[in-house]
Every structure is written in C-alpha cells, then in structure tokens.
C-alpha cells in the first residue's frame, strides 16, 4: 500500500442470492488521481460504489479511506467523511429545484437543526448565506445558471447529469465517485465532460473514481485504470497497459459477441 493511498480496497466480496457480484477485489486509489473503473455490464462496478457509499455491506474484505476502516461507518456519515457520488440512473430530488438539489448536497456541512431552523437564529441566516454563495459557484461552474430555479424533473437528461455532479461537489468530497457520467451524452457533451472532470480534479483538488463504458473518455482522462469482469479484477495499471491487456480485450469481445 503506497503512503499516499486515499482509498484501499482489500479482498472485497459481495454476494446476492446466487450471484457473486464482487469476488475478492483489491486495489488502491492514490490521492489526487483519476482512477477509471471499467468492465462489461454486470461486472460489479456499481456494486463496488454501493459498498463505498455503505449502501451494501460486503460479505468479506475491508475498505480503508484515509487509512481508517470504512465498513463500520453508517451510510449517512459517508458524505461527512468526504466521499461524494453520482448515480448511474439519476437519483435527483425530482420536485426540488436545481438549487435546492445542490443545497441537499451540502447537508453534511450544515449545522442547523429543527430548533435553530424554526427560530431562524442568526447562525442559521449566516449559514444560509454561506451555502447560497457556494451553490452559486457550483451553478456557475456547471453552467446551470439558466435553470437554477427550475424543478429538476423538467430538465433534459444531460442537464440532470450536471445537476447530479453539482450536488455531489456541494458535499466538498475528497473522493468523488462518478457512475457513468457520460451515459446518454452525445459526442460534444462527452468532450465537455472530459475537460470538466480534469478541471474539477485540478481546481477542487479531489480524487476521482470514474466508472465509464466510454473507453475513449476513460483512457484519456484517467491516471490509472482498473478492470473488472464477473466481479473479479482482471487488470490494474496505466490506461495504456490496461487497454492492451489480453484479458480485458477478451472480456469486452466476449460480451460484445
């Protein structure tokens, strides 16, 4: 384990009735890296994200985040630790506006409670002003100015994806988990996304774990790539190495056929 490892995953296995979704997966993500996570449909990528979000508990294995064990932490404390995520099949708060969705993303950093909110204490107003400022910055960063006060339900798919990203960033994560951010985007949008991911990493100094089927995007944006197939890790290395790995080629050709 390298000393600057932000996340280390060791021998993680997840089983569902009759299916082994993850089978002894181990790898590290270095602080500041963009790490791609690839694999055919059903390889277990989202399942791994759900373990990191503590929505699933692995049957075996350990996960350490900043050197501390993660699997004893409750799901609602994960954001506070510094892990944020987007969802493969959009999980927005549909009746709420873009701005409100982003504000929920900042929940881990709010101190207001039922009593202070009901009385609207000065501390609540100060916090509200701070959060509004931060939300404005994210709205600008992700080019959501025109729709900031629109209910998310009425937005296009690509815009919704940007809202998910803004919401995840509002939690000021150290580790950002992106589950197929390019899914459903057209060529130009994918190009914009590629610059955006790089810019976010550099500006906000975060580490990214990126699940993506869009090979061109993953290989160009990642510092390192991990490949899964049927719940097992089949390759782990630089984009160039993983791209040419015979097991990876076979996994993709095998499912394409």
């Amino acid at each position, binding site marked *: 384990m390298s000393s600057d490892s932000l996340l280390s995953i060791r021998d993680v296995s997840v089983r569902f009735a009759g299916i082994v979704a993850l089978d002894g997966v181990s790898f590290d993500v270095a602080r500041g890296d963009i790490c791609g996570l690839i694999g055919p449909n059903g390889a277990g990528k989202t399942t791994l994200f759900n373990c990191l*979000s503590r929505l699933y508990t692995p049957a075996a294995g350990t996960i350490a985040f900043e050197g501390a064990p993660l699997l004893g932490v409750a799901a609602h404390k994960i954001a506070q630790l510094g892990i944020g995520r987007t969802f493969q099949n959009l999980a927005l708060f*549909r*009746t709420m506006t873009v701005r*409100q969705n982003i504000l929920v993303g900042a*929940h*881990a950093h709010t101190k*207001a409670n039922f009593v202070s909110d009901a009385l609207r204490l000065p501390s609540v107003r100060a916090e509200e002003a701070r959060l509004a400022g931060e939300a404005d910055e994210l709205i600008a960063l992700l080019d959501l100015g025109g729709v900031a006060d629109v209910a998310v339900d009425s937005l296009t798919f690509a815009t919704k994806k940007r809202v998910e990203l803004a919401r995840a960033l509002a939690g000021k994560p150290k580790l950002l988990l992106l589950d197929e951010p390019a899914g459903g985007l057209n060529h130009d949008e994918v190009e914009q996304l590629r610059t955006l991911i790089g810019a976010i990493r550099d500006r906000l100094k975060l580490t990214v774990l990126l699940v993506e089927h869009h090979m061109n995007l993953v290989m160009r944006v990642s510092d390192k790539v991990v490949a899964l197939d049927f719940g097992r890790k089949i390759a782990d290395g630089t984009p160039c190495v993983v791209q040419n790995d015979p097991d990876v080629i076979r996994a993709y050709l095998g499912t394409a056929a």
Partner: protein
Amino acid sequence: MTVRTEPVMAAALPKAWSAWQATGVVALLVIAVIVPFAVSSFHLLQLTMVVIYAIALLGLNILTGYNGQISLGHGAFYAVGAYTMAILIERAGMPYWSIVPVAGIVCFIVGFLFGLPALRLEGHYLALSTFALAVATPQLLKFHALEKWTGGVQGTFVPGFAAPLGLPLAWDQWLYLFSLGIAAALFFFAWNLLRGSTGIAITAIRDHPIAAKTMGINISLYKLLTFGVSAMYTGIAGALGALVAQFVSPDSFTIFLSLSLLVGAVIGGVASIFGAIFGALFIQFVPNFADQISKAVTWAVYGLFMITFMYLMPNGIAGFLKVIGERLRRRRNS
C-alpha cells in the same frame, strides 16, 4: 403510497415573500383580529375551529406532504392533546395557557415514539398502522384503569375562564384570539423550518431516500423528529379544541376525525403551508353546507364535494391558486 403532486411544481418549499404576498398575509391577519367583534358567537365558534384545524392540518402536512409519511391516525394525537388539556385543568389545576406547551411536548414524545416502529414501515403499511392507531384511540381512552383521569366513557368537562388582564372580552372571543396568536406563531415556525435546511432535508427524504442518505441525511432521525413535530402541532390543536368544546370524550375522537384531517390536508394542498388554512375551511364548513343542502344524504353530498374539488384541483386549493397566480403574473408581464 407516497403523496405526490402531479405535475411536479417547482419549489414546493416556501420562499421569501413577494411584496404583495406579504400585504395579503398582513391584511388577512388584520381581518382575523377584527372578526370576533363582528360576528355572532356561533360563527365565532366555527372560526375558532377553523384556526384550530389549520394548526392540526399544518402538522399533518409537514409529515405527509413534505416528508411523505402518510398518516391516517392524526386524530389520535389531537385526542392526546385534548385530554392533556382536560386532565391537567381538572386534576392538576394548572392554568389553561400553561398547558398548551405541555400538550405540545407530550404529543411530540408520543409522536416520536410512534414513529419508531413506523420507521420500518413504508407507504401502505405505514398508512395501515396509523389507521390502527386511530381505530384504537376511542377504546384506549375508555380504558378502565385510566378512568380516574380520563372520565372513562362519560368523558370530562373542561371549564371556561375569564379573559386575562381584565380585557373586556367574553371567553369565546378571547379563546379565538388566543388560538389565532398560537396559530400565527406556529405557522411562522413552520415556515422558517420548511424553508431552512431542515425543510430541504425532509423533502429530499420524500423524493429519494437513498440519495438523501448518501448526501449525509440521517433519515431515521429526521423521520422521527418530523413525526414528533407533526404530532406536536396536531396535539396543540387538540388542546385548544378541548377548550372550545368544553368537553372531551372518547367518541369525539373516532377514526372520522383522522380521516377528516387527511381530507383537509389533501384538499387544501399537500406540501403547502397555506393549504392547511384552505383545508381547515373545507372540513369546517363543507359538512355544514352539505347538511343544509340535504339532511338525508349529507355525507353523500360531502363526498361529491370532495370528488369535485379533487377533480378540479388535483394539487389542492393551494396548488390551484398558485397556478392562477402564476398565470396572472405572466399575463401582466407579457
């Protein structure tokens, strides 16, 4: 069963008011304060009940409308508030005004505790368990061992008092103003709560619990606290209701009360603060009105009214008025 407003309306959560919304609210308050001097005591009693139902409906609305936890049993919390008032006046000799916050705290605790098993239930199952609570309430209130306190089947009388500070007001006039003041404070707190981070969090739980959890919201805690606050509002309404009725008995708090509250919340407009006021007007006046139309089929007429309202205003009265308001604004701007 999640209560959803279709089509999705942006910003169901309250925002800061525009100038003329604020003017409207102030005007409404001024009228509300003048009313007890202008109407008969029978109509005053009805209006006092509107104010009280509005508090109860606001409580239910916070839970069902904003947080998505459906309750068919809020009559039970209303009953607990009413009995707290009756018992503490009669057996403990406490002044009625000091019992209002006590009833609120008692109902908060009862609601919080009821919320614990309810955490494991969702949708229809939660609806059924709250229904069970409502069905059981009259019998629990008749319970023998508690008869010394509750008055058993007969119930208990609640005395009237003089207006405080030598104010030249009859008890019913004072009670109306007292209820109105409490309602104004509770509406103000709810408005603050719902537009603050708490309101955003409880609405997020309704819209997408898993995403809410991932954003760091402690869902169990928020649901329990919401249940507690909701029961507290409805319980305070019950405490005031006991003062108005001057009598509490098990049969005042049947399942019909719980259902009426849900009707009021839905017809007024779920996930809307003002919806509670419209809903209160509906459940107070429409049954009387239906009764005047036909004594023989009162409840059939009431049902017809309900269906008509829901058909014409699928987002409740508050949702309907909001759409009209937006249309007017757009016409003025264009």
